[in-house]
């Protein structure tokens, strides 16, 4: 069978180009890319036509930072429901952080995750293994064994690596296996019992604050360790003006560091917590308007390489409680694309740049498939209707959890078709019927 995606505007994030092209897909791979009108299907082949005129066709989106909760907290999300949420949001690949129960610090957990992903059979799921056993910052996990089992990176996400010595050795050791190292930057002593950003809102609400410095101290440490070891460190969920400044400076000095932010850090500030809304509680916390501005500038200047959701599902048991007792984290897979497109309309980034941060860049940081539309490559594609307008509804989430501060938001732009290896996994065009 041949699939023919007709007349879409195809984005090549690597070249930063947008061209009207037809895409011909055979056996899960992109067979040909050609100008409209050039493709003439011959004979009586089995042909599926997807009319993408007026639409954008991009490489399948890649989310390098999600929490799928399996194994251990299947009531919040499973690899299957998380994959559905990803597909609905236009993502064809995700990297799962290791803070499950048990923590993914062994081959068996990594293999279990991959097995569940195969059963779910929707998108590509890449396990990220823990840096330290039990993410306790005491001893290293078996990077080599974990990589052979299928882990694509190491991180203790959910917690920082508290020992600078251990982090140094982790980076050095990861180099041998070419494994990316992802850092959750948080000085636990400084963030202490904090639950929101330390500033005017924490002062007004009487909630314990988390100063920006809690993140920035660790960002600076990771930069210095990247410099010391000469091997890259990737900074997860950048949220402050200071972090952007330090990363920019490091890049200018040629220190190998990359960074991601999440849509909530450029869409919301700490005033979202007023009224004690636990769906505005996450780590790092929502910051100040000046930080939101700095994140946008960081994105536009290329200081921040990737947009990742930090999709962190929690049930009502964790969220419908007193603010200081509520769990940190929000879901993001199904709102990331429209929130990013809002930045494009705002003029922060061009569309190819924005798509690069949602596909090509994270795929390159993790050295995984995807992020490009090229002949001979896997047909992982997302078709986006930039003009589709809708209101975010709790009932429409495919994720098992609904902890989103964006419920009720008016959005513009939607992934109307998601294709993984030539197979449609999200079909709002009703092609399959």
């Amino acid at each position, binding site marked *: 069978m041949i699939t023919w995606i007709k007349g879409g505007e195809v984005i090549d994030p690597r070249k930063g180009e947008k061209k009207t092209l037809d895409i011909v897909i055979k056996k899960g791979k992109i067979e040909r890319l050609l100008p409209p009108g050039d493709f003439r299907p011959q004979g009586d082949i089995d042909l599926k036509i997807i009319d993408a005129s007026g639409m954008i066709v991009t490489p399948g989106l890649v989310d390098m930072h999600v929490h799928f909760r399996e194994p251990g907290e299947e009531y919040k999300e499973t690899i299957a429901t998380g994959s559905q949420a990803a597909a609905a949001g236009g993502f064809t690949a995700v990297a799962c952080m290791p803070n499950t129960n048990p923590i993914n610090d062994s081959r068996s957990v990594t293999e279990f995750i991959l097995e569940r992903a195969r059963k779910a059979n929707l998108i590509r799921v890449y396990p990220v293994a823990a840096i330290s056993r039990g993410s306790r910052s005491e001893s290293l996990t078996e990077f080599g064994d974990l990589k052979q089992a299928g882990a694509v990176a190491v991180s203790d996400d959910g917690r920082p690596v508290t020992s600078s010595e251990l982090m140094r050795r982790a980076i050095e050791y990861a180099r041998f296996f070419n494994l990316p190292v992802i850092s959750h930057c948080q000085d636990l002593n400084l963030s202490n019992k904090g639950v929101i950003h330390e500033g005017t809102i924490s002062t007004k*609400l*009487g909630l314990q604050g988390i100063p920006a410095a809690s993140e920035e101290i660790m960002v600076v440490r990771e930069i210095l360790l990247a410099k010391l070891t000469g091997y890259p460190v990737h900074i997860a969920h950048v949220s402050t003006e200071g972090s952007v400044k330090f990363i920019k400076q490091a890049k200018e000095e040629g220190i190998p560091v990359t960074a991601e932010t999440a849509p909530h850090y450029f869409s919301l500030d700490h005033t979202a917590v007023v009224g004690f809304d636990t769906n505005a509680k996450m780590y790092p916390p929502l910051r100040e308007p000046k930080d939101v501005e700095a994140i946008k500038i960081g994105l536009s200047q290329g200081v921040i390489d990737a947009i990742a959701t930090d999709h962190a599902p929690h049930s009502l048991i964790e969220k*419908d409680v007193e603010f200081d007792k509520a769990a940190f984290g929000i879901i993001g897979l199904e709102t990331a694309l429209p929130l990013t497109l809002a930045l494009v309309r705002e003029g922060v980034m061009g569309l190819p740049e924005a798509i690069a941060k949602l596909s090509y860049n994270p795929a390159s940081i993790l050295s995984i498939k995807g992020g490009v539309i090229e002949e001979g490559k896997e047909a992982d594609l997302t078709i986006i209707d930039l003009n589709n307008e809708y209101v975010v509804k709790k009932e429409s989430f495919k994720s098992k959890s609904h902890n989103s501060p964006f419920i009720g938001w008016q959005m513009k732009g939607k992934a109307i078709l998601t294709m993984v290896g030539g197979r449609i996994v999200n079909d709002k065009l009703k092609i399959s019927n």
Partner: protein
Amino acid sequence: MYRFNHKDLLGMDQLSVSDINMILDTADSLMEISSRDIKKVPTLRGKSIVNFFYEPSTRTKASFEMAAKRLSADTLSLSATDSSMVKGETLIDTARNLQAMNPDVIILRHSSSGAPHLLARYVDAGVINAGDGMHEHPTQALLDLFTIRKKKGRIKGLKVVIIGDIAHSRVARSDIIGLKKMGAEVTVSGPPTMIPVDAESLGVKVVFDPEKALNNKDVIMMLRIQLERQSEVLFPSLREYSIFFGLNKEIIKRAKKDVIIMHPGPINRGVEITGDLADGPFSVILDQVSNGVAIRMALLYLLIGGERGDNLD
């Protein structure tokens, strides 16, 4: 015409100047009941009030109970030690259970900021915040405003200093909001570890040194130093705290001659305030306690007594 139109009292920030005046005026007219031989009126007969204290507080709880009894309401008191209501049960479970008893008002004291706001979303009963975490303690602020107005005849234009752990104090937060609304000038003072970040955003002046902060003040509000803050590295010792940040008869000379000293209690004598000042002529600490009952009567009356906003005859 003005009407007191609130279901809950969650914080000072929800009250208008007219609301505050109404509460203070109502408290004024209720003060008289407390001086009668039979200190009881039938105003809230048949109404039921739940005192729900997740955090221990003898004083505030007693004050609310006294207020409810003087108005002839039925009261039920639950505390965190009555653990069947608390252990393993979420606040929302508890709220639903309480709601099933159909009370008119639930008075909540809780260690989490925002807990009364959460409760109020789940019950039909009125909710009074009797102190939530480090957030607000509105009835304390109202009784403080009431005490100041009685002693000084006005609030507007007065210079007030609040000294102590401003950052962790719900009393300070509510007092600041109330005082600012009523037109007072507020200065906060204490070690920098105890002044919240961006304190100026609350509309106050920050003067760390109490001696300087006391200059020309009409009202001094001392806060209780929570002894456990020592382990949180906010200050090295009670001894040093009392030397540099405690109120004593030397530094009080900087304030106005007719200054009044307030304290929400319980006092750590010799820590934030010397015993002679706490018991001396400037102190209105015991007035605060009796005024507290009147303020809480006024609130219960305004929230559930017949038509909201009716004048008391």
